[in-house]
């Protein structure tokens, strides 16, 4: 899942973010003020969970919750099929759009996969090539009509339309796994408004059966994406208009939506709590304010005035962390977001592994974090590989025996070993000029690289670096030999981290990494028995890092959420790295 959070910071962040520094050494990074954070684990499944959701202790009805999202532009469209960002999916999946399955937060803060529109987590045949979900009959749309199995099937069918929803998660998962997806262009592009030409899905009574082209054991996780939910048949859900006012079937419905500005949700009176195993409807409404100014939001949240009491903020400025850590107490929540920041040397241009390792030693991790507005050891912790901590199968190895830290002398040695000792090795990269933090972080990177025996050409860009990195025809992109990506897992499995970043020709494989043994192994792992897959991904992660070192993981990312005094149950959602919208309420 793309992290477009602070767009600017990503820019910065991608290149500037992260990675290894002397600070915290483990996943439960101690914040320096006795603040302990639980390890995030992959979570569990509970296929028997039924509605209504267990009540939250002391929960009260009423009130409107305001959510400030500093530096976060939010989704451009609310169409469930088009969403593939942490911000948009976390809001919509928790509040407005139901899907086949969903996550619930257990007492220990770990996500539990539970049923949603389906009555269980789906049943599959032995080799995971056919999944059947039984759709519950008591879920309702906001207009009072029941959610039917046909509508769920149509919603799933929409995710195959990669022309209509180019940035949707369906382009990665539905397209790769569903049978016949290659030849089917989708209901809109393929002029098939009733989705009759796609044979991969069939509806019988309340049962929806999906056939897979390749074994897909993670279908139940993929089912938790709002793209795997219902959509009204026919014209009612025609893109792009549907994206402005999608029909809700969760506890809240969209009252108004101005992209990049504000999203207002109000109670959906038709939502039946009995049919939903994990969502609540405590607050009367929600207001999401996008693209807020971090300093302004920090002042509001720390002021304790009436604006801030029933509000929460999805981040805290690094300049506020030291001063407010104690004062905020439980109201400050650190949530690991199962994300990794990487810098990606172009595999076709920087072919020597020693040069890539030299880059890793020349990258001034902690300095980049500080000048980029992060708190070392808190919002950024050193990373050893691509798979984030807590993910099933994640191995605690180090490429060179110990955590790679900034060491320019070692970098020079490695460069000399690779035969580039006599003159600086040229690195060409971009940075997001519009954000002074990104520029400041780039300055640190440049200093570090130059001390490590590189020369740096940093090209300022005015657009999101992703726009450059992902555009293969861009003339600036063609010059680059160092790019980067921040990537978050879509569900707690290596299959959502390694292939999207490191499979040949994957969209976000900005390193252009292409090794046939790795590609083959990725295909092979999805055919392994389910219980072997997690460790197989972990092994592959280690193999890729130690043998090829194609990307330099600079940090694992954590988020800081600030909750107002009257927000009950201030917690984060470990499944997606966002505030736990499902279980929040307003205290009287």
């Amino acid at each position, binding site marked *: 899942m793309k992290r477009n959070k602070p767009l600017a910071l990503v820019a910065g962040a991608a290149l500037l973010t992260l990675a290894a520094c002397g600070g915290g050494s483990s996943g439960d990074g101690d914040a320096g003020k006795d603040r302990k954070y639980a390890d995030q684990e992959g979570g569990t499944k509970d296929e028997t969970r039924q509605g209504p959701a267990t009540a939250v202790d002391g929960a009260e009805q009423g009130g409107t919750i305001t959510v400030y999202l500093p530096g976060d532009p939010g989704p451009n469209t609310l169409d469930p099929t088009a969403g593939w960002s942490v911000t948009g999916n976390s809001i919509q999946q928790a509040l407005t759009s139901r899907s086949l399955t969903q996550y619930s937060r257990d007492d220990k803060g770990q996500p539990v996969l539970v049923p949603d529109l389906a009555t269980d987590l789906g049943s599959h045949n032995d080799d995971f090539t056919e999944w059947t979900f039984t759709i519950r009959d008591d879920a309702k749309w906001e207009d009072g009509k029941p959610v039917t199995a046909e509508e769920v099937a149509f919603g799933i069918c929409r995710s195959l339309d990669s022309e209509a929803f180019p940035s949707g998660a369906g382009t990665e998962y539905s397209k790769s796994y569903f049978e016949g997806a290659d030849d089917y262009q989708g209901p809109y592009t393929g002029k098939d408004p009733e989705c009759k030409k796609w044979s991969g899905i069939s509806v019988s009574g309340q049962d929806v059966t999906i056939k897979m082209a390749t074994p897909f054991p993670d279908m139940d996780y993929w089912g938790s994406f709002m793209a795997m939910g219902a959509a009204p048949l026919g014209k009612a859900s025609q893109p792009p208009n549907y994206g402005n006012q999608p029909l809700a079937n969760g506890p809240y419905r969209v009252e108004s939506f101005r992209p990049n500005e504000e999203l207002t949700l109000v109670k959906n009176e038709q939502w039946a709590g009995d049919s939903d195993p994990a969502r609540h409807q405590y607050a009367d409404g929600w207001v999401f304010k996008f693209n807020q100014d971090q300093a302004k939001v920090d002042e509001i949240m720390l002021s304790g005035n009436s604006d801030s009491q029933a509000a929460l903020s999805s981040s805290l400025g690094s300049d506020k962390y030291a001063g407010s850590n104690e004062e905020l107490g439980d109201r400050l929540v650190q949530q690991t977001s199962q994300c990794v920041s990487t810098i990606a040397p172009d595999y076709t241009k920087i072919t020597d592994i020693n040069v890539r390792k030299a880059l890793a030693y020349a990258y001034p991790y902690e300095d980049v974090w500080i000048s980029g507005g992060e708190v070392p050891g808190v919002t950024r912790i050193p990373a050893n590989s691509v798979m984030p901590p807590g993910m099933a199968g994640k191995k605690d190895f180090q490429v060179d025996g110990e955590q790679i830290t900034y060491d320019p002398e070692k970098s020079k040695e490695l460069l000399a070993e690779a035969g580039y000792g006599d003159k600086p090795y040229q690195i060409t990269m971009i940075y997001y000029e519009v954000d*002074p933090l990104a520029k400041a972080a780039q300055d640190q990177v440049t200093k570090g690289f130059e001390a490590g025996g590189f020369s740096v050409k940093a090209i300022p860009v005015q657009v999101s670096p992703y726009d450059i990195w992902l555009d293969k025809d861009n003339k600036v992109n063609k010059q680059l030999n160092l790019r980067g990506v921040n990537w978050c897992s879509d569900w707690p499995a290596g299959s959502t981290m390694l292939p999207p970043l490191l499979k040949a020709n994957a969209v976000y494989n900005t390193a252009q990494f292409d090794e046939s043994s790795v590609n083959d192994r990725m295909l092979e792992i999805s055919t392994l028995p389910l219980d072997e897959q997690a460790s197989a991904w972990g092994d592959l992660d280690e193999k890729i890092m130690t043998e090829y070192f194609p990307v330099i993981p600079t940090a694992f990312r954590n988020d800081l959420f600030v909750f107002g005094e009257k927000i009950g149950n201030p917690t984060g959602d470990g499944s997606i790295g966002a505030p736990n919208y499902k279980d929040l309420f307003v205290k009287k």
Partner: protein
Amino acid sequence: MTAGIAGPEALGSMDDEPQLEDPNSDNSKEISGKSPMQIALSRLARDKIAVVCALVVLFFIICAVFAGVISKLFGVSLESGLASQYVDGLNSGLPKPEMGPPNGPFTWDHPMGVAPRTGDDNMAYWLYGCRVSLMISTGATMFASIVGISIGLLAGFLGGAVDKILSFFIDMFLTIPFLLAALTIAPILSERFNTSDNYATIQMISLVTVLSIFGWMGIARLIRGEVLSLREREFVQAARVMGMPTSRILVKELLPNLAAPIIISISLMLPAFVALEAGLAFLGIGVTSGISWGQIILKASNPTFFREYPQYLLQPMLGIVALVLSLNLLGDAIRDALDPKTRR
């Protein structure tokens, strides 16, 4: 008796009148021998505010011209090591105690402290920021006034169709909202040249260009108006009758008579450009290298930093305020000094 009362009063007030001197005395010869410019300068020298302002401006000019030397003298430079040597990431990115205020005592290593988050030396950035500010504003003032004066002279003197066309362009440029245009043009220019090795220089040149493109209209209008009234005067008519070429009339006859309005508008344009440069840098569409007062203000305008470390914001603020204020006051004083109708 009313007349009797009025008499002495009238006499008394007459006594206050300056005594008329003998035109042939030494004293009056000195006065009559002064050129208008000398009179203006002596008026200026007697104006205490003007003298103070001139000194302040001189100070900034020295800072700008000798930024490198002064930095060396204090042992500071734009080049610094990695951020973590100077600032504490766990303490809001504020400078470490040994770097001076706000957490430690004053140190000569960094007389003005270091910047939070990056550890850049404030003094070096202040001095070079001053240089950038004055370079850009002087450059823009020069170009804008050259363009403005030429167009004003031509429009005013030639009249007719030429005047109509040129006036149309003046009006057209006046209708373009400066900020919107700058916001649009800056990214286009940046993108066009972002792969160049001289990006920083190109950025400064493009900034000067943008500032002067939108800064010449005021002076052009002013000059045009002045020329309109001057061109019907006898000495111009005489020059025409004598067959002087137009270029000579413009340069030799008209221009010297326009010295006062030109000097005045230049002296008022300069502070306007200093403020604009900082404003654009604050908005992120001017200089982005970080060596600019506006950029420092942008980074420092964070409530935490202002609370904990107000010097960081105050240093560039003081620079801009002092420079703009003294340039403005100096400009006013020059205007007063050059205007024969004002009395001091």
